[in-house]
């Protein structure tokens, strides 16, 4: 089996007597978009800073691409491109000079590659303007460009959609998915916005007060044969229940005109056919998956920061 790209083992960070991160263990395989979700102050940024060597690790290890970030920093960080919080650039330099600056620091990054990333993020028209004239969205793109310069295997983005408008968020989201699917880059993205994570990620880790609470797989990646709770909206719920019972399908009334069954795709179609042939009007069929928000509130107990 392929070794995971990132391994965190019992990572703990203490500042003074306060434990910021408590025994965090995670694995991130190649090519996955992995969400890191938690309320403000839960330790997301601290974890990311430890992953890129900006903060020391009190105990435990972070291994990236087979190298320990503590002891083999220079080799481990070669696999990584990152934006930590806002993409702050040298404002008195042009976008291009900023990229050249980072390109010079990474062996093997040519000026050809710099042009390439400028085109990837669609900044060709303004790249020779000073950064202080850029909008936030353009700075964000320049940030992505510098993170891609070294063709990383792991892209780390800390709250990447902060300050972006809906179009910008959507663009970033599509772009990240494309990177993960086409180039096999693993993306580690932190956010406190649930809906956004749901659209962007394959798996989401939920963290609260420095502790890992749960790891969820997002709905769209479920197995086709998996049983899902389906809700039917019908005109005659009692009749529908007995019809389904006759067809050996266990159903329950969930209130009003709604009935629910547990079924995979084929069973859902069969249930629908049975209802229609019995002359029952079916108004709608939908999956009854809890949203990430509901799951999140469930696992964190809706707790506030004390």
């Amino acid at each position, binding site marked *: 089996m392929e070794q995971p790209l990132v391994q965190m083992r019992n990572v703990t960070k203490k500042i003074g007597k306060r434990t910021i991160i408590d025994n965090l263990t995670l694995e991130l395989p190649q090519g996955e978009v992995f969400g890191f979700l938690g309320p403000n102050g839960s330790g997301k940024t601290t974890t990311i800073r430890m992953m890129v060597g900006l903060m020391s690790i009190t105990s435990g290890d972070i291994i990236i691409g087979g190298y320990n970030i503590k002891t083999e920093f220079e080799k481990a960080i070669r696999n990584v491109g990152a934006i930590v919080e806002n993409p702050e650039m040298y*404002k008195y330099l042009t976008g291009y*000079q900023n990229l050249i600056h980072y390109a*010079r620091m990474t062996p093997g990054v040519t000026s050809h590659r710099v042009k390439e990333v400028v085109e990837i993020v669609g900044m060709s028209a303004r790249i020779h303007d000073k950064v202080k004239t850029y909008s936030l969205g353009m700075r964000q793109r320049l940030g992505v460009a510098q993170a891609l310069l070294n063709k990383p295997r792991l892209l780390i983005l800390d709250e990447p959609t902060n300050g972006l408008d809906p179009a910008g968020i959507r663009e970033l989201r599509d772009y990240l998915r494309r990177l993960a699917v086409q180039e096999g880059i693993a993306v580690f993205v932190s956010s406190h916005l649930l809906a956004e994570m749901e659209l962007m990620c394959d798996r989401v880790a939920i963290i609260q007060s420095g502790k890992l609470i749960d790891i969820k797989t997002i709905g769209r990646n479920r197995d086709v044969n998996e049983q899902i709770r389906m809700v039917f909206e019908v005109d005659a719920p009692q009749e529908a229940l007995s019809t389904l019972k006759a067809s050996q399908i266990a159903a329950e009334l969930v209130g009003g005109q709604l009935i629910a069954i547990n079924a995979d795709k084929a069973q859902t179609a069969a249930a629908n056919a049975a209802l229609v042939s019995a002359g029952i009007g079916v108004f709608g069929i939908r999956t009854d998956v809890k949203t990430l928000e509901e799951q999140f509130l469930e696992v964190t107990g809706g707790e506030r920061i004390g």
Partner: protein
Amino acid sequence: MVDFINLIRNENMKIYRRPRTWVMVGFIFMLILIISAIWAANTSGSVSIWDAVYTETDILYMLVTIFVVVVASSGVAEEFSGGTIKLLLIRPWSRSKILLSKYLASVLFAVFLSVVMFAAAFLINWICFGLFNPYSAEEIVTLGDGYKPITYLFLYFCLKMITLLVIVTLAFMISTVFRSSILAISISLFLLIIVNTIVMALTMLDYAWIDYLLFSHLSLVPYLIENPRYDGSTLGFSLSVLGVYYVVFLVITWYVFNKRDVAS
């Protein structure tokens, strides 16, 4: 090695692409021009080019020091205040090497600005006092007995550079430790200007530790005239004390920078 030179090129780009650097250079140039022009207008040939160069560089070295302190102080501190330190440190380079590139760029700037000042002083004063002067420059020179003027100025330049190097290192250390360029600039200049005067007075007192204060040894030029100096210390002793401070500054700077959690 080639790769490390790239780091220095980066730091140089961050210094010389800023307009303020060229304002500093222009300001020094203008001041020399103004002083020489006024001086030349009010004397008739009795001033030698050497005296003019010496007087002007002596005054302007203070300004050069201030400018160099400003640049050295902002090197590390502004990376922190601007947040760019985060993107700088996640490259495949150890923190020590990144810091070294910044330090060397600051030292190079100190040399650059000093050379610019000397070159401008020579050029402008050659035009004002050398070209049309009926007297031989050597005849009317008044400085440094026993030295040829050019030798004297060269030694003067070297001693001033040593002092400047120590001050740059001090400013660089404060900037790294406190991550504030304003603080680094104020403390360096305060120590340089105010404390320097107090120490002059302190040397009158008879405490042994005064001999080991940094500020008793920042002024090296008097050794050109008399060695040992007025307070009895020799050039060798002064250089040793400065050397010890220099090493201590570097050790503190590197230790703090390597240990620091970047959390801003």
